[in-house]
């Protein structure tokens, strides 16, 4: 079976010296992959390259076997994403925002838009302008936009940002449900390590722009008291090197 994500020798350096170097990583179909790393480690840079928002200096990303560099449209067709912050057009209603995105997918109709708004708890605010939304509501709308096309892969950068406790629980349930029922693969970066521990099946740790370890969550928890302990020990170990 073809990998959901295959990152090969990916490099991108900023003028301040940060960025990613020779990143190699594969994510299997059906994984809920947690991408962890300290601030400035290169998580968002990697995710931006994976979604075509940034061009790498070298290397490639293949999504379900299709290169993001040579066949972007085909590669991104099965991807939904939230990168950095969940944005929306502030002068449009939640429904109009989703209608814009729906135009790129022939099989997404008004019923699917309503379904996504319902899943994310935004249906009562369907006709409200996005500029009046709270951070959590914008995040929910961002999630609705990401799942709209029933993507096979969801790349989520800090998906729990701004969500209240109930919202976090809903999001965890949604990730589990989409993974189990529709076989959706997830690539998630989050600083809320407890949520990552409860949600993700595999963990990758990035430090100083390099991938330092990839391990199944079950194996990590067999050897460490918590994912937090594992993460701290990995970061400390690599900081000493």
């Amino acid at each position: 079976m073809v990998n959901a994500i295959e990152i090969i020798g990916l490099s991108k350096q900023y003028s301040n010296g940060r960025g990613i170097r020779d990143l190699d990583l594969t994510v299997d179909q059906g994984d809920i992959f947690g991408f962890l790393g300290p601030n400035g480690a290169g998580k968002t840079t990697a995710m931006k390259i994976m979604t075509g928002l940034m061009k790498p200096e070298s290397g490639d990303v293949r999504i379900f076997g299709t290169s993001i560099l040579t066949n972007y449209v085909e590669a991104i067709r099965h991807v939904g994403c939230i990168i950095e912050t969940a944005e929306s057009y502030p002068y449009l209603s939640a429904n109009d925002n989703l209608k814009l995105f729906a135009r790129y997918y022939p099989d997404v109709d008004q019923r699917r838009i309503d379904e996504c708004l319902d899943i994310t708890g935004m249906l009562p605010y369907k006709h409200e302008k996005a500029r009046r939304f709270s951070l959590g509501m914008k995040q929910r709308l961002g999630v609705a936009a990401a799942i709209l096309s029933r993507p096979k892969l969801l790349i989520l950068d800090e998906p729990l940002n701004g969500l209240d406790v109930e919202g976090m629980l809903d999001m965890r349930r949604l990730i589990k449900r989409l993974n189990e029922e529709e076989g959706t693969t997830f690539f998630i970066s989050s600083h809320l390590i407890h949520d990552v521990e409860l949600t993700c099946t595999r963990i990758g740790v990035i430090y100083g722009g390099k991938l330092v370890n990839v391990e199944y969550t079950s194996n990590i928890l067999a050897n460490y008291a918590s994912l937090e302990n594992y993460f701290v020990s990995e970061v400390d170990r690599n900081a000493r090197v």
Partner: protein
Amino acid sequence: MPGFKAAFTNELFKLLKKKKLIISVILSIIAVLIGQAAVTAVQTGFGLRIAGSTEFPLIVLPVFMYTILPMFATFVVIDMFNGEFTSNTMKLTLTRPVSRFGVFTAKVANVALFIMGNLMFVMILSLVVGFIFNPASTGLIGVLRVILAYAATFFPVFVFSLLVVVLSNMLRSGLAVFFLTILLFIGFIVLSFLFSQYSSFFITSLFDWYSRWISESMNVFKLMRQALLLLGYGIMLFSAGYYLYDRKDL
């Protein structure tokens, strides 16, 4: 081009939802009405006949094309590029199944549509106002000349807006693009006066090429040369704009 149709429809939808469109319509109406009021005042006050019904749109055109039209075309371009880059909404489009070329072309096509729509609106409005105030001098040839003049005006204004597209993809701040556009616009006009032998190289000097299209003696070679100059500028500016847009990291 996959995704172009969706990108084009979305850009149009966003454009129609913006207040700038309404303001440009209101300002266009005001400009036409002030123009007609001035013409009527001179005609009744001094007894001078300034414009017939189909001449009035040709009086409005130069005023409109040197002020409201390029200004609002610049606003639209800044909104489409700088506005979306700074508000981080550009990524909403770029993470959908559409190529950057598709998105860029859809945006530029909407700028063209805006200029075309604005010109058509002012043409119809000024024709109607002209007919109402000077019904005696109506003629089919006159109407055709007006249509030809307004259609010809589209090209230089569109090429100028492509220059703004290039600036929008070079500079991050929309305000900087706006002021630089004004400086370039004035600079081009001044330079074409100072170096009149090179005036064809300044886009703004081609703004009034419509007058060659409607003049009694049409100089085909000069028209052809100017058309090719506009085409050359258009291709170069479109390519430069796309090159910058495609290389942009978000």
